[in-house]
């Protein structure tokens, strides 16, 4: 395959600048906690269920006990020390976590920050409780490894990634199984629009989502079980993906680990840029969530593709590269390894533009060379898809070809109805046939693909890398680094000020005696990494 070579000095410089640009964000994450991080701790300790007196009947509208407890703690003693100390201090009396939650519901629970020996006991008890959750995550990771060993991995790269999104878990399941039988290696269940703005994780098996299905622990469990069945049937381990980014990143990461999801959409900036979630909130949440993913052996998928839906894919190509480098830095700091980094990029150049296909190849090759050991996630055309479904089917074919020519790791299958509806059963089936044709007929064309150095593709790749390094330089030089550049609208031409957006009130600066048993247990992981 191609000989595209990148200047190693330039590449090294890019990584060093990315690390510097991200440092302020890492420091910020170390100094703060959030309501969702604390709720995640309680979930790891096994607290589930919702307060029956809340919501409008539908379980998914009820407030989970983890929210009630964290809010109660916050009201009574604040969160500066985290929930673990006051909660396990309260449990010393012998009540169960569930029991305590019900007291909170009844308004009878009283919290205090223990000190001295009481604090030590609370810490220890909390560590044990959370340890059981971590143990379950570890068990799931081993279980995955066993299943992959028995059923086997997909026969070839790229892995075929398909989305289901009916809004109804009971429609999603047969469609996901059909997709797997049709050849999907990875199934993603997209969330109901706007779930990412809920400051709680709904519960139960849900049937009422819009353009997506609620991400709930029960939905995770049902779908994973259904995919385990087809995996056995097909003799190929079919992976399950969902979405972490949003106001509940840490909790969803925990649920993903507890229910053996295999991949998670987890981007350090997506929630900020595309859901207007407060930057500080997101940066604290993403670090915790990624530490959990690291432990769970989950592959993360980042969301650079989204930038190209609001910004021009050629003019802003370098911002994708910059974001990939930042996501990489932050992911590694949180303990993720190269094989877990499904860095995103997309085929979003205006198809009417001269040389559009070769420009796509140049961008895709750049990413491939820059992150040789990461399973890059290659996203299909969306922005320039129209109601002309014939044209759309053709574009998706060329997207598939670009994926094969440039050795992408995960191929999100494009739908001819992208501009029309959330995928139909038949759209998905036709889309997989498209992928199958391209990979069978032309999958090895990479052997004959050799962009000459100094040629169009080679020149374009170098231009983008150079622009990316320049931008990283500007970001790194700013005291607040990344946070400032986001405020300036660097990514997806969307401006997000540090104190704007949703969920800021859920961010708490940590006090001296702060204690988070989950972090403590997971840090080991990080230091191992």
């Amino acid at each position, binding site marked *: 395959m191609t000989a595209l070579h990148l200047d190693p000095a330039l590449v090294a410089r890019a990584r060093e600048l990315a690390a510097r640009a991200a440092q302020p964000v890492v420091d910020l994450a170390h100094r703060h906690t959030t309501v969702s991080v604390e709720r995640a701790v309680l979930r790891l300790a096994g607290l589930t269920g919702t307060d029956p007196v809340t919501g409008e009947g539908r379980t998914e509208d009820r407030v989970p006990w983890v929210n009630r407890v964290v809010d109660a703690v916050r009201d009574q003693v604040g969160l500066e020390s985290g929930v673990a100390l006051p909660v396990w201090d309260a449990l010393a009396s012998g009540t169960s976590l569930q029991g305590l939650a019900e007291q909170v519901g009844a308004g009878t629970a009283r919290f205090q920050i223990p000190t001295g020996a009481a604090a030590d006991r609370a810490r220890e008890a909390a560590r044990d409780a959370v340890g059981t959750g971590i143990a379950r995550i570890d068990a799931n990771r081993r279980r995955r490894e066993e299943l992959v060993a028995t059923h086997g991995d997909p026969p070839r790269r790229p892995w075929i990634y398909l989305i289901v*999104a009916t809004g109804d878990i009971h429609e999603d399941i047969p*469609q996901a199984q059909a997709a797997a039988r049709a050849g999907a290696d990875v199934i993603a269940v997209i969330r109901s629009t706007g779930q990412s703005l809920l400051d709680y994780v709904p519960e139960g098996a849900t049937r009422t989502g819009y353009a997506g299905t609620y991400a709930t622990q029960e939905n995770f469990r049902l779908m994973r079980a259904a995919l385990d069945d087809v995996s056995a049937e097909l003799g190929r381990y079919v992976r399950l993906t969902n979405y972490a980014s949003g106001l509940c990143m840490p909790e969803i990461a925990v649920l993903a680990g507890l229910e053996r999801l295999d991949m998670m959409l987890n981007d350090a900036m997506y929630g900020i840029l595309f859901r207007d979630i407060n930057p500080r909130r997101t940066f604290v949440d993403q670090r915790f969530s990624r530490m959990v993913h690291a432990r769970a052996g989950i592959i993360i998928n980042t969301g650079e593709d989204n930038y190209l839906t609001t910004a021009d894919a050629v003019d802003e190509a370098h911002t994708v590269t910059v974001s990939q480098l930042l996501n990489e830095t932050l992911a590694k700091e949180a303990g993720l390894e190269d094989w877990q980094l499904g860095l995103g990029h997309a085929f979003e150049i205006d198809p009417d533009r001269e040389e559009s296909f070769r420009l796509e190849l140049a961008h895709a090759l750049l990413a491939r060379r820059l992150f040789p050991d990461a399973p890059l996630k290659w996203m299909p055309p969306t922005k320039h898809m*129209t*109601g002309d479904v014939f044209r759309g089917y053709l574009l998706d074919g060329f997207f598939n070809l670009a994926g094969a020519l440039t050795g992408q790791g995960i191929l999100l299958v494009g739908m001819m109805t992208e501009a029309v*509806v959330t*995928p*139909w*059963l038949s759209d998905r089936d036709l889309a997989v046939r498209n992928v199958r044709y391209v990979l069978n007929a032309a999958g090895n064309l990479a052997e004959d693909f050799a962009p000459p150095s100094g040629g169009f593709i080679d020149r374009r790749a170098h231009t983008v890398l150079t622009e990316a390094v320049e931008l990283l330089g500007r970001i790194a030089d700013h005291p607040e680094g990344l946070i400032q550049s986001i405020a300036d609208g660097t990514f997806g031409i969307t401006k997000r000020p540090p104190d704007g957006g949703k969920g800021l009130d859920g961010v708490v600066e940590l006090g001296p005696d702060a204690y988070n048993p989950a972090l403590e247990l997971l840090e080991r992981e990080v230091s191992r990494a």
Partner: protein
Amino acid sequence: MPDGSIVRPYGDTTGDGMVQTSFTLPVAAGPRAEGAALQLATKMGIEPAMVVHSHAIDAGYTFFVVYGSVKHLVDLDAVVVEERAYPLLSSSEINGAIRTGLNRKMVVLGACIGTDAHTVGIDAILNVKGFAGEKGLEYLREMAVTNLGAQVTVPELVAKARAARADAVLISQVVTQKDAHLRNTRELAAAFREAMGESRPLLVVGGPRFDPAMGGDLGVDKVFGRGTTPGEVASYLVHALVPQKESA
């Protein structure tokens, strides 16, 4: 999938009735054309219909892609299926049935009539090479098969059939523009009725655009469509030409 006998098209939810359609209207692109497209979609039963794409073709035409839900229900019980009314036989069963039931070889003539020169289809049925892994009729010891090839005129064919005392005449029609295949088939049926009346050979026609259900109204004994295999045809011939008790 529901097991009730009433179903609707399936987009992504049971019962949503979703369909895709595309067409061109001889109307210049613009709001009027969009409205016309919606009107047509509605008449087709698509409500609500979404005109998701349109573009001008030349000056006076507009191409449309429409998505939406059709109100129609499909009644599976009302579906008339040409269920195969005869068993699929193996080569040896077929040879056996003919030998014992007919105690002579079955004479089969094949041809493409009219100006149709598409022989691949009839060859697939007749030639030893066959189709979809099944060998063609020529491979059957007890059948005397003559493939007359393409562009045979109806009179020629009638004459040859009479001369050969054909039990069955198999014809292929692939070109369907202006319903040429239907017209040619009717013409063939009429000519044989005319020339041989009751004693006419079994008439079998096939081609990718035939609806197997339309045999009767074309005046032939049997119609085969898309993806027919030689085995189906041979089995049918035995069923239709060999005294029943024997072929059982």
